């Protein structure tokens, strides 16, 4: 889990930081180092599979660059050698030179064209890899994590953070390779030509390093801030778009505008600050370059005056010195993108570092055909936020039994359901399926054996068929229709504009709440699990619908273990056994008939419910 505060540095470097410090900008030194190391490790890790391509790209950049540099040299040759030959009537030299120039032109073009493709390949491979890693990680993480970390932040990680990395990858490789090579060659040539001027250049490296260091420290903080600001902007945007119905119904528009404008302004200001920082960084490097030229001129000039240096050589050294600083602007740009991408990778690597609280078993016990015998033994459970929901819980549900859970909100019914579905793990004790601890089951076996239909019948965009098939992706069309028929959803689906191929639109906009629940029932039916948990799964159905579902349920639940949480006691009637829960304990346990006949809570509830019926 994440540690967001406290703890000595040693302990901290041992435990992953995760997303705990995500919103923090001024990290202390150790955390900052750890976070940066984590980010760099991720970048190297992503590039590793592409290293062959990466170096191929670099080679192509060299070829293209060399061919381009060759151009002026060939021209010089044409004037120095070709022209005299031609004047003597010998055109072969000029023809040869013309051909060489053409060749260089094609090489330069082809080289550039090829490295653009290769660089895109590297960059896209890295991005795809990272996208998939982040997606897989968000699927892997437990609900406990998702209940804190919002969808907006995950989207921010997947969009704007990846965009920052993309910027670096798209231009970084080529600019860096060509710029470095250019500077290296120019520097070497200068040393060979006149080592004293070369020394001047070497000295100039010192202020360059100082400026770079200054920029690195400052920009790191600004870019961290930038990631946080853009994530906040995205979170706010996503939340308001998702909840647009409530936004409009309660006239939140102007307050929202104010809030969003403020967040956009924070983001803008942060952007501006990083631009301004870059606007000092880049000219500073150029200033150093131009000052170096002036210094070289002063020293060289004196040497010329002393007669130690020829004028011709001086001109050459000065031109080299000036040219040495030509790619500086480009390199500054690359470094800037690198800083921005690093900040983004700090956030992404934090997300990737998170460990699910519900872990997969290392050596899973195979259970391909579960019977559905459930047992809670000495179970204690509390959410991370504090309160203990189940202080000490024991329960045995034999295979095939249909159990109804009754009790007021907060009694622990949903918690019980979530423990069986392993959305959470018990704090203490064990939950067993057919005698096997749930924590020892493979995810595949667990999900095949236990399925839960939740309160929210979420529909994904796509067709009705796709949404039902989520229960078992390899199901045939006939099986999907059969599942829909079994839960009484077939008819309304047939009436939709395109039947099973109707697009449910964004958030199932055009399907009523009751119909959504029927679709999610069909999903569960298709999944055909040994244990089925229905957590308030019938609340939106109309009475005829519920009646039909109930008939379907009786056959559906016939040969499997079922746990039904329902406020509508009509659903409870089909149960073999009723558990009344209060404060995380079972206070009544028996057949519906026995409990109704008694004078306990259930009896009272049932009477009240009977009375409400007409």
């Amino acid at each position, binding site marked *: 889990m994440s540690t967001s505060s406290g703890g000595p540095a040693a302990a901290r470097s041992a435990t992953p930081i995760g997303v705990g410090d995500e919103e923090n900008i001024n990290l202390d030194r150790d955390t900052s180092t750890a976070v940066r190391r984590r980010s760099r490790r991720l970048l190297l890790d992503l590039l590793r599979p592409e290293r062959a391509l990466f170096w191929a790209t670099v080679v192509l950049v060299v070829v293209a660059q060399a061919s381009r540099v060759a151009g002026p040299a060939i021209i010089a040759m044409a004037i120095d050698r070709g022209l005299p030959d*031609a004047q003597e009537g010998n055109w072969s030299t000029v023809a040869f030179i*013309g051909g060489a120039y053409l060749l260089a032109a094609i090489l330069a073009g082809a080289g550039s064209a090829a490295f653009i493709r290769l660089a895109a390949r590297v960059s896209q491979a890295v991005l795809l890899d990272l996208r998939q890693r982040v997606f897989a990680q968000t699927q892997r993480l437990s609900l406990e994590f998702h209940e804190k970390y919002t969808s907006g932040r995950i989207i921010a990680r997947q969009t704007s953070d990846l965009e920052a990395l993309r910027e670096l990858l798209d231009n970084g490789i080529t600019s860096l390779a060509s710029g470095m090579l250019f500077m290296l060659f120019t520097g070497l040539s200068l040393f060979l030509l006149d080592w004293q001027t070369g020394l001047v250049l070497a000295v100039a490296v010192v202020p360059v390093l100082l400026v770079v260091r200054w920029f690195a420290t400052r920009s790191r903080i600004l870019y961290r801030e930038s990631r946080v600001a853009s994530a906040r902007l995205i979170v706010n945007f996503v939340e308001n778009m998702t909840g647009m119905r409530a936004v409009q119904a309660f006239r939140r528009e102007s307050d929202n505008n104010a809030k969003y404008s403020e967040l956009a302004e924070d983001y803008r200001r942060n952007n501006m600050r990083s631009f301004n920082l870059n606007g000092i960084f880049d*000219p500073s490097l150029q200033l150093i370059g131009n000052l170096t030229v002036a210094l070289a001129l002063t020293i060289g*000039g004196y040497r010329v005056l002393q007669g130690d240096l020829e004028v011709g050589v001086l001109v050459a050294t000065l031109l080299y010195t000036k040219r040495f600083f030509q790619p500086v602007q480009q390199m500054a740009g690359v470094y800037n993108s690198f800083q921005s991408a690093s900040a983004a990778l700090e956030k992404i690597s934090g997300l990737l570092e998170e460990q699910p609280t519900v872990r997969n078993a290392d050596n899973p016990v195979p259970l391909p055909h579960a019977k559905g015998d459930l047992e809670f033994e000495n179970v204690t459970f509390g959410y991370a936020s504090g309160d203990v929901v189940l202080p000490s819980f024991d329960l045995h549900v034999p295979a095939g039994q249909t159990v109804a859970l009754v009790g007021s909100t907060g009694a622990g019914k949903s918690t019980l359901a979530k423990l069986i579905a392993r959305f959470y793990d018990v704090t203490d004790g064990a939950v067993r399926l057919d005698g096997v601890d749930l924590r020892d089951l493979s995810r595949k076996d667990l999900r095949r054996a236990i399925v839960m239909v939740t309160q929210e019948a979420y529909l994904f965009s*796509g067709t009705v068929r796709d949404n039902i098939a989520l229960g078992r992706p390899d199901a045939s069309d006939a099986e999907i229709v059969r599942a829909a028929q079994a839960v009484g959803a077939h008819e309304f689906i047939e009436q939709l504009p395109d039947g099973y191929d109707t697009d449910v639109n964004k958030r199932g906009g055009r399907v009523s*709440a009751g119909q959504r629940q029927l679709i999610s029932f069909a999903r569960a039916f298709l999944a055909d699990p040994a244990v089925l948990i229905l957590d*308030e799964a019938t609340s939106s159905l109309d009475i005829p619908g519920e009646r039909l579902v109930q008939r379907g349920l009786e056959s559906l639940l016939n040969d499997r273990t079922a746990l039904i949480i329902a406020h509508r006691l009509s659903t409870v009637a089909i149960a073999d056994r009723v558990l009344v829960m209060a404060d995380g304990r079972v206070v009544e346990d028996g057949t519906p008939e026995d409990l109704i006949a008694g004078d306990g809570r259930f009896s009272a*509830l049932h009477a009240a419910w009977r009375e409400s019926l007409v």
Partner: protein
Amino acid sequence: MLVSATAPAQRKPADTTTVATLLRLLPFVRPALPRISMGMLCALGAGLCALAIPQVLEALVDGPLAGAATSGDTRGLWLAVAAVLGLGLLEVFFVFMRRRLILTPTTHVEWSMRTTLFKHLQDLPLAFHDQWPGGQLLSRAMTDLNMLRRWMAFGIVMLVVNFATVGVGIALMIRTAGPLGWVYLLGAVPMAILSFRFSRRFRRIARLSQDQAGDLATTVEESVHGIRVLKAFGRGPEAYQSFASQAGELRNTEMNKARQMSAFTFSIITIPEAVLGGCVVWGVWLVTQGDLTIGALGAFFATAAVINGPVEQLGQLLSMSLTAKTSVDRYFEVLDSENTVADPEKPVHLDEVRGEVRFEAVRFHYPDAPPIDLVPAPTHVPHEAPREEVLTGVDLTIRPGETMALVGLTGSGKTTMAALVPRLFDVTSGAVLLDGVDIRAMTREYLRTQVAIAFEDATLFSATVRENVLLGAPPEARTDDDLHRALEIAQASFVHKLPYGIDTTIGEEGLSLSGGQRQRLALARAVAARPRVLVLDDPLSALDVETEEAVTARLRAELSDTTVIVVAHRPSTVALADRVAVLQDGRVTGVGPHSELLVDHLHYRFVISSLIEDEEFDRARGLRV
């Protein structure tokens, strides 16, 4: 395909010219124009300095410095140093000013475009939001506007500077080497043709890539919002597969983009260089014929070398401009979406709202609903007859202070009717009247102050309980007493047991609550808004019997003079109502007190009663076939 989003119909190919598109930016860019123009001048100045410094160096060293060397006079040296230093400082100054002048105003442009978009999105009706997936909107608000800002700050400036440099360069080449210069200029003809063809192709792919990126964002959003379903069915791996293939498609598009770019780059580098290759041979020939001096030939190639860089950069700048263009297209697609639920020009204000709601011959179908097959399928389950319209002529009057329940089968249009009252949708024909005034004659702001609504699936925002409940409360009713009253009516006392009580942050970024708890907060929110008309869309479905009873009792007592429209599935919710309206096949087929309807309305009995015997139930079902 599982869990993968694609944007539907909104992709009309916007094939406007690039210039026309960019001109639309003018209103946003105008305040920044003076600074951007100044910045461009600075960029030109910096470019000129960069060109001039080597020339000046050469001239100075050859001239005054060489002179000083022979005369031993150091003044020549200092002159040269001063000149180089001066030019160097000037160059840095120009570079610095270019950034200062341009970058700040472009961030303002980006900001104003972003907030304008957000504002417009909030103004657009729900019908729009139903059709546009979230990722597509987000990618427009973030990625596209970032792209546009970068283009304004860098792309357009460099494009102008490069064109100017190349233009000046070619003019110089023509002056120094006459026919050679013209030949070089001739090379611009195939380049122009190729650029045009490249633009057409690249624009299409760039657009595709941006759309795919938006869809990918939608898929991410859905995979997180639907995480419980994915976990419950163990469908993470399938969701991953589907996402991975979608991301793979985006990569393919990007690679396609790179291939186009690569082919174009080949031409843009090779053509001018090849022309120069020809110029070498021809130039030498001209010199041997005495038509050109050696010096002019050298100068020609020196200038060609200088403009080489800017020419090569044009390819990159062109692709950037095309991407920016499609970003602008995408942005304006949303901004141009017409608001079909707009405020009237001369809004009506009621002096005092009594709270009478009347539906007059209301017909409604969702604007994007495709025509459906009107032949009913054979069926043995109760259902509504297929129809294109959800409501096919509803007439209903709800008296001031009355509580009216809407009852009908799933899909009968109850929720739609409820949503029409606060104008979340507008009627297709007919009218909804509040105190005899068409609600379309009022501003939405005013109407929604009078009408509050609670939904079945409650939307809570990342904020404290207090903020969530008082979301729509009038300014004079935001005290603690108001809050507690609303919470008490909605039986939401559980909030006091939360870690920080009413100051606990809930919603996505806070504590997660159960469905029943969320519903009660949504109900409290609607009550706290102190509306004249309260619309409850089955807001008690996730409550247990006891709580529901308590809520119902409190609502009856507190809302005696508020008009209440309640969508109901259960007799217990109907108990709240003075009268019940039965919705059947998009019409109201019966209005009256619950007890009367129960006696003489077969469909009502069928919908609401769980006590009718199975035989009668099946008979009623038979009637529907």
